Each structure stands twice: as C-alpha cells, then as structure tokens.
C-alpha cells in the first residue's frame, strides 16, 4: 500500500515536471511560459519530496524534505514574478491571442510610473486613515 502511494507520488511528480518542460517548448510567449515552468515544476518537486519523506520515514529526512517544500513555495513565485515583470517592461511581445491588457495604458515608459486607474473616483471617496502606509 505504502509502496503504491510512493510510486504514484513519484510518477505524478515527474509527470508534472515533464509537462513543465513541454510547456516551456510549446507555449507562445514569455509570460505563459513562466506559468508552465514555475508552477508545474514546483508541484512536481513537492510531490517527489513527499515521496522521499514517506520512503525514508526518518525525522531528519522528513524535516529536510519539508524544508525543501517550504523554500520552493517561498522562492518560486518570487522568481516567476521578477522574471515576468522584467520581461514585460523590457517589451517582450505578448502572444497574438492575448485578449486584454489592462496594464499597458496605465504605464508610462518614460517615467516608469504605474498608475492604478483608481485615482480619480477612489481618492475622492476614501477618507485617509491613521493606519494608512504612505
């Protein structure tokens, strides 16, 4: 029973990693590629680490595999965000099938100012609070 669960975890984990690799090759633009690589690969690593923890079932190994899972969960989204953001602002083309882009009209490439589009109505309505950060 345990063997079967471990095998299933390992197989699905490596399947997700394979999917991440296929996605990296097939997807049309930078941002959609970031989707495939970071998330599918992170899920793959998590499943494989769970299988390793179950296989060895020692405190040291279990603690280390959970530490790996936590660090993957902490670093993967930050890396994806930074790469995606840099690529977007440097000007990498979005795929032709992209349906909408609400960021472009709010961004000023000269001053690097990014508006929220809420300035006009929202600021008038909202009262400033003492707890507000600047």
């Amino acid at each position, binding site marked *: 029973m345990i063997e079967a669960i471990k095998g299933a975890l390992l197989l699905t984990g490596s399947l*997700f990693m394979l*999917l991440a690799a*296929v*996605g990296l090759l*097939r*997807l*049309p*633009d930078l*941002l*959609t590629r*970031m*989707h*495939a690589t*970071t*998330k*599918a690969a*992170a*899920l793959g690593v998590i499943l494989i680490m769970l299988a390793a923890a179950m296989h060895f079932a020692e*405190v040291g190994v*279990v*603690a280390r595999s959970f530490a790996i899972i936590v660090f993957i*969960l*902490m670093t*993967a*989204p*930050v890396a*994806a*965000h930074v790469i*995606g*953001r840099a690529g*977007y*602002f440097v000007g990498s083309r*979005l*795929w032709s*099938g*992209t*349906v*909408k*882009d*609400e*960021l*472009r009209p*709010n961004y000023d490439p000269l001053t690097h*100012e*990014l*508006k*929220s*589009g*809420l*300035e006009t109505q*929202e600021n008038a309505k909202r009262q400033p609070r003492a*707890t*507000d*950060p600047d």
Partner: protein
Amino acid sequence: MTGAIWNLLLGLAWVLLSGDFTGLNLLVGMVFGYIALVLIEPQVSALKGYPARIPRIIRFLGFFLKELVQANLRVAFDIVTPPWHMQPGVIAMPLSARTEMEITMVANLISLTPGTLSLDVSDDRKVLYIHAMFLDDEEELRRNLKEMEHRALELFR
C-alpha cells in the same frame, strides 16, 4: 505571536518532562499545549485570537491545495492538447491588502496558483496587475482571486 511561542514552550516542557526526545513527542506536546492554551484563552488577554488561528490556517491550506491541483490540471490539459484553449491577458485587481507584508503574501499566493502570475503593483499600492492564462470567464476568475485574498488576509489580521 505570543501564543505561538507559549505553544512551543509548552511543547518543549512536555518533551523535557516525559524524557522522550523525538520529533513525534514534540508534536504530541505541542498538541497538548494547544489544548491548554484553548482552555485558558478567556482569562489571558495576550492569547486573544490565537486558538482560532490554527483551524483557519489548516482550512486555508486545504483550500489552497485544492486550487493548486485544479488549476495545474487545467494548464496541463492545455499544454498537451494541440489547439490553444487559453485566452491570456493582463487584468487589474483592486487590492484590499494594505501593508507591504500583506501585499507580498497575496501576490505570492496568486503567483503560486497556476494560471495567474502577479506582474506588478501600481505605485499607489491599490491595484495588483495579474497575468492570467484563462480569461474566458473573467468574473469567475476575479471572484476566485478575491476569495483567495480574503482568506489569506484573515490569517494575518
């Protein structure tokens, strides 16, 4: 925060007194410590809100794992089938998170679920720009993102 420290101290005391220095026994001690803290919560104001936090964290983890697997399968399906079903796009999501820490957590959680990638925060920190892979049902997506943000904020407030 004080609650978590007391919980850990009670767990350590349990380990010392029972003389069984293993990780499993520490876990048992933490569980008993948690029960003790739940019992004395009404009397000690410093513990206010700590006991309610643990079930909330567990529920959030369950919700998040469900979202993670579901969305991963959807992206995986689109990758392996030859025609593209996706309709990617960048949407602006108004944030209810206010401090830097909260915005960081919400943006990271959104980046972690497949199909959404947080791109940038507007200069006045009111709007998070998100690249989404499936915009065929935008209302549904916005509702999901809002729910995720709401649940995440519950954990920190």
